[in-house]
């Protein structure tokens, strides 16, 4: 059946809430109003005000409450409406939740699922358009996942809710309205930490995450090369086995990230491949990112900001046929270094 990504999120939460009475949900405007992205529609009606709670605008308070609730018998799902709002509550995620098991010798754990909308593409401006996975991926104890579709949002979220440690689920905002054809249910649950191959090929390995997965799909259409295309799905812990295995066969790697060049997850992937699969590489590793600037509002600027299918196709052409690692567009056009 065709399912929109925001419907898939609701369906995944509903399935887990039906299976486990300790699963609870809270966040801003997620109850009767169903969430600003309509990703929690119907849950308040089905599960009631005790388990589905609208919060005050107090991210530090209600995320901290999730830590305490998770440690004492509940399984909270918390929505941070825009991932930027996590800034005021980051302590509770990276300093408390992520370390709760460690600092209790395993006596307590903070099995929270923290969902947040993330990323650009909808014209929300600089402070409502970032990915910000980088705030969290350096915090041991955390698991970080980014779905790329309705199907993966459903499958990953169900696993995240069942996890006894904190999981950050970053839902690309621009994908909430996109549809997948799949059957929700136990068979659609996806394991965390496991990448998916979305295409099999021989010339190049393409690695994407979240919004760049559909971009990669588009770039492959009509191309003169064949790609092993990997949807990473989980960034911590990322599936190095899948990537290394693919690169050992293709000898080329292009990583496509939504996020500034400095400090992104793609740098980890590139470093690991360079260290562990150096002998397989026939060409430099290419890392495509957004420029190191805030996200501009104007539609023409925002569209250029994100890696496009044309950018990806061009970079792979150059890599496969000339062995060249192209510079980012902002360098080629002399706009920034």
């Amino acid at each position: 059946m065709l399912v929109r990504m925001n419907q898939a999120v609701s369906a995944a939460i509903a399935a887990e809430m039906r299976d486990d009475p300790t699963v609870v949900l809270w966040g801003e405007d997620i109850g009767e109003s169903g969430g600003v992205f309509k990703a929690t529609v119907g849950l308040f009606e089905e599960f009631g005000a005790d388990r589905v709670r609208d919060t005050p605008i107090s991210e530090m308070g209600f995320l901290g409450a999730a830590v305490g609730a998770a440690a004492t018998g509940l399984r909270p799902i918390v929505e941070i409406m825009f991932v930027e709002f996590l800034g005021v509550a980051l302590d509770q995620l990276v300093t408390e939740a992520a370390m709760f098991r460690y600092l209790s010798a395993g006596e307590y754990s903070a099995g929270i699922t923290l969902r947040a909308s993330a990323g650009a593409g909808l014209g929300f401006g600089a402070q409502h358009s970032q990915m910000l996975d980088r705030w969290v991926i350096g915090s041991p104890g955390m698991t970080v996942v980014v779905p790329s579709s309705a199907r993966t949002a459903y499958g990953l979220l169900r696993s995240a809710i069942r996890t006894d440690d904190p999981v950050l689920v970053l839902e690309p905002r621009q994908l909430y309205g996109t549809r997948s054809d799949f059957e929700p249910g136990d068979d659609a649950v996806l394991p965390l930490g496991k990448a998916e191959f979305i295409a099999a090929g021989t010339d190049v390995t393409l690695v994407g995450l979240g919004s760049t997965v559909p971009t990669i799909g588009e770039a492959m259409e009509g191309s003169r090369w064949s790609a092993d295309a990997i949807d990473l799905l989980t960034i911590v812990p990322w599936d190095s086995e899948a990537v290394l295995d693919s690169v050992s066969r293709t000898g080329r790697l292009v990583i496509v990230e939504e996020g500034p060049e400095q400090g992104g997850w793609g740098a980890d992937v590139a470093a690991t491949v360079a260290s562990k699969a150096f002998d397989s590489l026939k060409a430099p590793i290419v890392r495509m990112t957004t420029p190191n600037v805030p996200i501009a509002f104007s539609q023409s600027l925002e569209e250029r900001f994100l890696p496009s299918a044309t950018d990806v196709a061009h970079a792979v052409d150059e890599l496969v046929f000339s062995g060249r690692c192209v510079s980012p567009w902002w360098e080629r056009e002399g706009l920034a270094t």
Partner: protein
Amino acid sequence: MSLIGEPNPLERRDVIKFDRLARLGRMIEIRRVEEAIQQLFAEGAVRGTTHTAQGQEAVSVALAAATEPSDSVTCTYRGHGVALALGMKPETLLAEVLGRSTGAIGGVGGSMHLCDRSIGLMPTFAIVGAGIPVAVGAGLSSKILGSNAIAVAVFGDGATNIGAFHESMNLARVWELPVLFLCENNLYGEYSRIDRTTPFEDLHRRGGSYDMDSRSLDGQEVESLTVELQHEVDQIRATSMPRFVEVKTYRFAGHSRSDPATYRPEGELDKWLKRDPIALASAAVIADGLLDEGAVEALDKQVSERVTEAVGVAVASPEPALKSMFENVKADS
């Protein structure tokens, strides 16, 4: 009957609840353990930092007496007193401060990170105010799961200026959760006196903003404080509504190991030393005819010897194995 050195933390908790002399003995134990920690630091046996609470022992002991092991307590990095009062054994605490494998969490935490679920002590928080919303969540668990447990957030006066405090008070009130907000107002937030950081000193007034039952209690007399806190805890359990208690107390030492506390107004420390909770409780048991002066001295001696013994046990404990660094990061580690 042995006042200290009982075999397990739960029994140590139990005796506090029912035995007034045990409460005095536990306060002495906390004082002696913190003195021992300061001594170990001076000798270079301990690394990093530590935050002691000499002068605040009555608050920790009264809290332990008024609550149950099934209640959840979130506490600050100034947590030795609360941990010992709730039942943690001195050698377990000292070994953690020394970073040894027999410590509360195997030596990976240190002075600021103590925990024992069996007595309701959640991991203590090294970030000011961070434990307050966590207690709110524990209160929510009780409410949703239908248990009779309450949650207690222990924090200092300085934490009432952090957003987490206000968000937590508001959330607990609006969600009607069984949480005791216990503020140890010792007049200093780290190195700064309250009058330089906060518009008024009577912090219980802050509860009014959240339409929460709030009061101020004397933190130096352990017996009266135990009775009053028991009343508060009983009310929370009966009504499933949060309450805010400000306890007026004082720390005799500086903020941390490196702080000589020279910033205090002249005479302030002397004034509070006259209200030393151990001296007050000792005088009271003598006045009430429970012990004579000699017996109080004997109690002190007995406790001190037990603490010295605990120091020896902790110092002799092995360093953690390297693999302990990799354990308990996630469920599968």
